[in-house]
């Protein structure tokens, strides 16, 4: 079953910003899915639409088959949301926050109290249950929002940059917690800036940039793609057509060719084969690749942290 089905989703904000320009996305039930993209790409907007915090301009969204336009109540109850910004009442205690959230979903108070204990304990917040949320550290606040999102036991958990501003130790423990609830059958979608995080956790990934999905594939497929570089070779005019064994290549015209080279392989083999055929390489450059460029940006952005 599809946990999420998005078709042709558009969002134009009041000021005229086109945050989403026609998104199509499918997520299967049980998946651990990453939505990766740079600042301002439209990740939070997309999630806002799923969680009814943002009104869409156009398009269709289904959550476990329930359409946002026609089955809103059911669609909403499938989702647990962990937003990017803290959005609980700073003066309420942790227990009040999570128990009330369950109440809004119709969970009786008695049941809500039991669940509060379960999730606050799992997220290491039980000792703080009676303190006001404003006294928590940033990492604790993030975990509080995870506990709050689980209180109505949703089938899908959506997390918008759950590990922003969280130290590496707590990040690791959050990762293992998320893996564990995913194994129990909860579909998870998370947004992140960090390829590393997506790599650690996710099976499938979509990359969003400037309001469009530019890549949607399995994590393995993406990594394989990223490990191959494409070079453009300018060749001296020559009567023979160059041939390379063991490489993917394309002849563009009689003095230009493109070769795909795995990073582990290196370029020596290419040059050796061409020399043997007495073909002279005049110059060589990288073929620019939008995905790769984006990755360089993302990965470098990640390193700055």
């Amino acid at each position: 079953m599809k946990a999420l089905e998005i078709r042709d989703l558009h969002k134009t904000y009041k000021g005229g910003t086109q945050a989403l320009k026609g998104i199509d996305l499918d997520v299967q039930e049980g998946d651990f899915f990453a939505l990766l993209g740079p600042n301002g790409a439209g990740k939070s907007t997309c999630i806002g639409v799923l969680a009814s915090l943002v009104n869409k301009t156009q398009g269709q969204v289904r959550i476990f088959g329930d359409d946002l336009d026609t089955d809103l109540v059911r669609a909403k109850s499938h989702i647990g949301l962990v937003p990017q910004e803290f959005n609980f009442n700073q003066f309420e205690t942790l227990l009040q926050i999570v128990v009330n959230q369950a109440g809004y979903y119709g969970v009786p108070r008695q049941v809500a109290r039991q669940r509060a204990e379960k999730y606050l304990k799992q997220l290491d917040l039980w000792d703080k249950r009676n303190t006001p949320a404003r006294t928590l550290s940033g990492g604790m606040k993030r975990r509080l929002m995870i506990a709050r999102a689980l209180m109505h036991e949703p089938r899908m958990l959506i997390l918008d940059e759950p590990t922003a501003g969280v130290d590496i130790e707590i990040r690791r423990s959050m990762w293992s917690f998320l893996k564990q609830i995913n194994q129990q059958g909860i579909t998870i979608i998370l947004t992140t800036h960090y390829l590393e995080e997506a790599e650690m956790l996710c099976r499938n990934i979509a990359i969003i940039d400037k309001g469009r999905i530019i890549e949607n594939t399995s994590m393995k497929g993406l990594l394989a793609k990223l490990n191959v570089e494409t070079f453009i070779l300018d060749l001296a005019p020559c009567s023979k057509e160059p041939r390379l064994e063991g490489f993917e290549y394309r002849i563009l015209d009689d003095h230009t060719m493109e070769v795909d080279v795995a990073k582990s392989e290196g370029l020596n083999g290419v040059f050796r084969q061409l020399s043997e055929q007495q073909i002279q390489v005049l110059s060589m450059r990288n073929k620019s690749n939008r995905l790769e460029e984006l990755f360089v940006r993302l990965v470098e952005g990640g390193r700055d942290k």
Partner: protein
Amino acid sequence: MNSLSFTALRTLWIKECTRFMRIWVQTLVPPAITMTLYFIIFGNLIGSRIGQMDGVSYMEFIVPGLIMMSVITNAYSNVSSSFFSAKFQRNVEELLVAPVSSWIIILGFVGGGVARALLVGILVTLVSAFFVDINIHNPLMLILTLLLTATLFSAAGLVNAVFAKTFDDISMVPTFVLTPLTYLGGVFYSLSLLPEFWQWVSKANPVVYMVNGFRYGFLGASDVGIGTALSVLIGFNLLVFATAWHLINKGVGIRS
């Protein structure tokens, strides 16, 4: 209403009540002090020189209006500040992501405002019992006007908070609209004391109908017809609730 909605409404209502009880020093004590001062100064010191109004002592005359005044202010400010801060701290999103209908949101917040208004109303009534003997002429009318006034100003506070962009925006209306309307709403004087033109103008002020309807409940005397008073109250309630529903349902100020 199904049981899920009922649980949601109950949760929101309890949360609203917990909020004003937690800050009772700011929410319950000030109206009691203000009203005590009014009773002492206007009722006792000045009132004793005024003599009778509408056939009762001046003190007795102003009690219903003063109770009404605190009901109006507290209903309004409870909902406007609670909803505005929910918007400001973004915890209104907790309601928006959940399967909670616009009506539940409105009823939950209004319910909180009404609870505080009634509590303050009771407190002020208790304070007034120190100064005058309280007689109730018509309990039904008393309760009806009290409830309808509390719901009306709670819902109006909600509408104000929906539009408010800063904390100043929620104190503007009470200062520039509510206070003048209540002071000119016949709390301290009988309309019959006014020149005919001003009596006529006063009848455009909805607070006049609330104060008089309520005073009728206590004293059996009113400057306006009881039927008219109730109709005005019900009419304004319908208007303000419809506005609130329209705004919340469209997500004005809360959904982008």
